[in-house]
């Protein structure tokens, strides 16, 4: 059986993958330490609890990335002739679903607390022979949960672009935005300290809205991916120009009269077909093979490409690149 090519990344992307994997391991260890620190200073502040759950949820993306990048590079076999690339999208779908559900649940808890006018209690903690307000300890814990995350996010972002990895990109952006969560929780805690009981519920609602927003955004994106939307660049909603470039390359060949290209994303890489109308009917299989190779060598993301000679193009399909 014909399977798709085995390799995933060229050397430059491979190196980015190694660095990204190392950063994600660092992220996991860091996030576990954050979750532990936060747990000890939670009190009964809903904002702190929400920030804490946010930190735990942040663990999902690195875990998804580490498992998915391991599985995605498995070689295609008889059972999975197209390879394992889409495991990345499926894992991302699960992560987005988790964010959406938790965000919704946390938002409703915050609103219920606000509606019932529940007053959050933060008591004393006994440390070094002195009893002081636990709220004071929450402040350094929140700073610890935000500042290293920002640096991690900043380091991951260029790697995500290089690898065309949407999980890593989403993770990097969430890390970078972590200071917003910490700031909201901080304002909630200070609000409690100043005697405004509602500050806690409002801060918690804002954090959960952010989680919910992330979840829904990622959900929409990954569902579109799984539905084989035309490839888009990692960081914007622009359609990737690559299919158009391939169509232009093929049309420049002297023996090709017209062409239509369609491509789909499979995790990091693209699969696609070009339907070509031949100028003369004496084209050799070698020429077709070389043209296919030419398309694949245009960009590392063109992973598996098929050239199909056809008698005429379907003019109805004007949305396909190259018409």
């Amino acid at each position: 059986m014909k399977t798709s090519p085995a390799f995933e990344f060229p050397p430059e992307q491979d190196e980015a993958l190694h660095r990204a994997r190392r950063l994600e391991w660092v992220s996991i260890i860091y996030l576990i330490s954050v979750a532990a620190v936060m747990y000890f200073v939670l009190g009964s502040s809903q904002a702190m609890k929400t920030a804490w759950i946010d930190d735990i949820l942040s663990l999902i993306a690195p875990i998804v990335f580490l498992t998915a990048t391991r599985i995605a590079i498995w070689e295609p076999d008889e059972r999975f002739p197209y390879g394992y690339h889409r495991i990345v999208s499926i894992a991302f779908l699960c992560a987005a679903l988790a964010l959406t559900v938790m965000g919704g649940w946390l938002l409703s808890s915050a609103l219920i607390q606000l509606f019932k006018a529940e007053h959050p209690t933060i008591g004393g903690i006994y440390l070094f022979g002195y009893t002081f307000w636990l709220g004071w300890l929450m402040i350094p814990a929140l700073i610890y949960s935000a500042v290293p995350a920002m640096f991690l996010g900043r380091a991951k972002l260029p790697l995500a672009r290089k690898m065309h990895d949407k999980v890593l990109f989403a993770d990097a952006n969430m890390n970078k935005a972590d200071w917003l969560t910490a700031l909201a929780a901080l304002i909630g805690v200070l609000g409690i300290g100043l005697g405004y009981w509602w500050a806690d519920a409002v801060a918690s609602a804002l954090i959960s809205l952010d989680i919910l927003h992330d979840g829904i955004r990622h959900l929409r994106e990954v569902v579109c991916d799984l539905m084989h939307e035309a490839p888009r660049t990692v960081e914007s909603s622009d359609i990737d120009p690559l299919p158009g470039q391939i169509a232009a390359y093929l049309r420049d060949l002297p023996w090709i009269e017209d062409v239509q290209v369609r491509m789909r994303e499979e995790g990091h890489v693209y699969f696609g077909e070009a339907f070509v109308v031949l100028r003369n009917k004496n084209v050799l299989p070698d020429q077709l093979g070389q043209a296919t190779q030419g398309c694949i060598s245009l960009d590392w993301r063109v992973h598996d490409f098929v050239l199909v000679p056809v008698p005429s193009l379907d003019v109805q399909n004007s949305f396909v690149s190259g018409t």
Partner: protein
Amino acid sequence: MPYDPEGTLYRVQRGVIRAGISINPPWTDFSNGKAEGVEPQLLNKFAKQFNARIEWTVDSESNLFRGLKHRQLDVIIGGITNSTPWSKQAALTRPYLTFGSEEHVIAVSQGENRWLLEFDRFLQSHGMDAMRYFEEEK
């Protein structure tokens, strides 16, 4: 910081502490018409710090916790441990006496964080008194 959203500490200073007591010797007793036991002694001492008078309400634990929740009471005593099923209705102090897994606490109104912190500080510095009262009551 912290301040009380409902201003409990400010109100009780040179004023009245509305205390609920459910009978549970040796921690609390009211059989002689006045509050006695380990916890009333502690509470009296606490009230003296703020020149406050205590107004006692004797009732069952469930009624007292309802009163605390509706802010008709400021504090409840009655040999409460921090595994009390009412913990969601109240703010519990840090344990002032511990016997095995029984951690004895005082319940105050939820969200009154300065009020709670004053109790935490008082109980931390009067742990020895609590132990002595307990030995005497036995």
